C-alpha cells in the first residue's frame, strides 16, 4: 500500500499519468462509436417522442458527468488542502474545466431536447435549474482560482469553496425541488427510464462509460500540463 504514496508527488505521478492517457482515450473513442451505433441503429423509435429522445443519450451522461466530476473535484480539493498534497489540488483544478464543459453541454442538449418535447427552449423545472446552478458553482470555482496569482493560495481557496459548495449542493437541490413544487403544482415529469427498452438503456450506459473514459483521458492530460506549468516537473528535450 505504501508504494502508492509515491504517486502523491507530481514527479512520480507525471509519467504514470502520461502513460495512462492513451489507455483511456482510445477506449473512449470506441465506446462513443459503439454507443452511437446502439443508440441510433439498434434502439427503436419511441412511439411517444419519435426520434428526438435520442438526444438523451448525450444529455443524460453529460448531466451525470457534470455532477460526478464536481463531487470528485471537491474530494480532491479537500484532500489537497487537508494533506497539503499539491498533486491532489492540481487534479481538482483539472477536473473543474471538464466538469464545467459537461454541465454546459447538458444544459444545451437539455434545451434542445426540451423544445420539441415540451415546446419551449427553457423550462424552470427542478432538474434544469439545478444544473444551471451547478454551472454557476463551477464558474465560481474556476474564476476564483484564476483570479489568485499565488498557486498555493489558489489551491486552498478553491478547496474551501469546493467543500462549501459540495455541502451546500444537497440543500440547493432540495430548495430548487421545493421551489418547483411550490410554483407549479403538477410537476413536469421526465420520461421514466425504468420502463426503458433494453437497447435504450444499453446505449445510455455505453455513452456514460464513453464520457467517463473521455474525462479520465482529458483530465489526466490537463494534469500533466499543470505539472509542467507549475514547474513541479521538468520535461527534458
Amino acid at each position, binding site marked *: 500500500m505504501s508504494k502508492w504514496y509515491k504517486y502523491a508527488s507530481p*514527479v512520480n505521478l507525471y509519467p504514470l499519468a502520461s502513460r495512462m492517457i492513451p489507455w483511456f482515450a482510445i477506449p473512449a473513442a470506441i465506446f462513443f462509436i459503439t454507443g*452511437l451505433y446502439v443508440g441510433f441503429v439498434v434502439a427503436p423509435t419511441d412511439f411517444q417522442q*419519435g*426520434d*428526438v429522445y*435520442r*438526444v438523451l443519450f*448525450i*444529455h443524460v451522461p*453529460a448531466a451525470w458527468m457534470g455532477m460526478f466530476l464536481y463531487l470528485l473535484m471537491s474530494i480532491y480539493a479537500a484532500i489537497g488542502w487537508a494533506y497539503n498534497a499539491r498533486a491532489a489540488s492540481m487534479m481538482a483544478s483539472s477536473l473543474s*474545466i*471538464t466538469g464545467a*464543459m459537461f454541465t*454546459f*453541454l447538458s444544459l*444545451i*442538449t437539455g434545451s*434542445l*431536447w426540451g*423544445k*420539441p418535447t415540451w415546446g419551449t427552449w427553457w423550462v424552470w423545472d427542478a432538474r434544469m435549474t439545478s444544473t444551471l446552478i451547478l454551472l454557476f458553482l463551477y464558474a465560481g470555482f474556476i474564476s476564483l482560482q484564476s483570479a489568485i496569482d499565488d498557486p498555493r493560495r489558489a489551491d486552498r481557496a478553491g478547496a474551501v469553496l469546493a467543500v462549501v459548495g459540495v455541502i451546500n449542493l444537497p440543500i440547493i437541490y432540495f430548495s430548487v425541488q421545493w421551489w418547483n413544487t411550490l410554483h407549479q403544482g403538477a410537476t413536469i415529469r421526465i420520461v421514466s427510464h425504468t420502463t426503458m427498452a433494453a437497447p435504450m438503456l444499453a446505449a445510455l450506459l455505453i455513452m456514460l462509460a464513453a464520457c467517463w473514459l*473521455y474525462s479520465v483521458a*482529458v483530465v489526466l*492530460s*490537463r494534469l*500533466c*500540463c499543470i505539472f*509542467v*506549468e507549475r*514547474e513541479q516537473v*521538468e*520535461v*527534458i*528535450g
Partner: protein
Amino acid sequence: MNPAFYVWGSYGLALLAMCGEVLALVRRRRAVRHAKSTERVMRP
C-alpha cells in the same frame, strides 16, 4: 421544426465541445513543451 435538427444539433454541439476541449488541451501541451524546452535547468 424537423426533429432531426435537434438531434443533429445536440450531437454536433457535443462533438464541438469535446473536440474543442481536446484541441485547447493539445495547444496547451504544445505551448508548455515549447516554453520548457527553452530552459534547460536540471531540477530534482
